[in-house]
């Protein structure tokens, strides 16, 4: 199962990178970033997983629990990713208002 999920994380990264390189629409660019982000999260949470270990809600000392540290890192990364997404979208809306386009190759600053 770990191998399947690790492969999925790599494949998601590939899809996200491909989208980042080919998409022209800025909102879709941000969507691709979210795919990339999800792929890393998957990898991080996968690091915590051990077969036969319980979720990290500690009831007693007799069971094995999965590692809570990567989970905490993943939660932090999700929140930071959401902030970045909001920031990018705010910039996109402002660019649309002043330039009238949502396509990156029509921005002047990008072509120098």
């Amino acid at each position: 199962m770990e191998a399947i999920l690790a492969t999925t994380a790599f494949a998601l990264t590939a899809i996200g990178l491909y989208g980042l390189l080919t998409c022209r629409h800025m909102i879709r660019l941000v969507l691709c970033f979210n795919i990339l982000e999800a792929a890393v999260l998957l990898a991080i949470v996968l690091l915590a997983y051990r077969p036969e270990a319980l979720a990290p809600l500690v009831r007693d000392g007799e069971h094995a629990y999965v590692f809570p540290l990567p989970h905490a890192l993943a939660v932090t990364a999700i929140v930071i990713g959401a902030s970045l997404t909001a920031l990018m979208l705010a910039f996109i809306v402002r660019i649309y208002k002043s330039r009238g386009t949502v396509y990156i190759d029509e921005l002047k600053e990008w072509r120098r």
Partner: protein
Amino acid sequence: MMLNVSVALLCAFLLLVAVYVVVARSVLAAIISMGVFSMLVTAVFVVLRAPDVAVTEAVIGAGLITAFFVIALDKTSEQ
């Protein structure tokens, strides 16, 4: 064995949705499939016994970020 097969199916679906997000004609369709994508990732987190990450991803990834995207799309497509 059962688990492996179901996880493999889940992952295949996840990849399909991700591909659709990248190639979909309409951006709105891509945004909505991004919400579906987040729910599938949430399911994977549950399988990996990470309830906290799953809850956070469900609320932020599938709910909040989708709302961000829909608002931004609305604001960038008005005349």
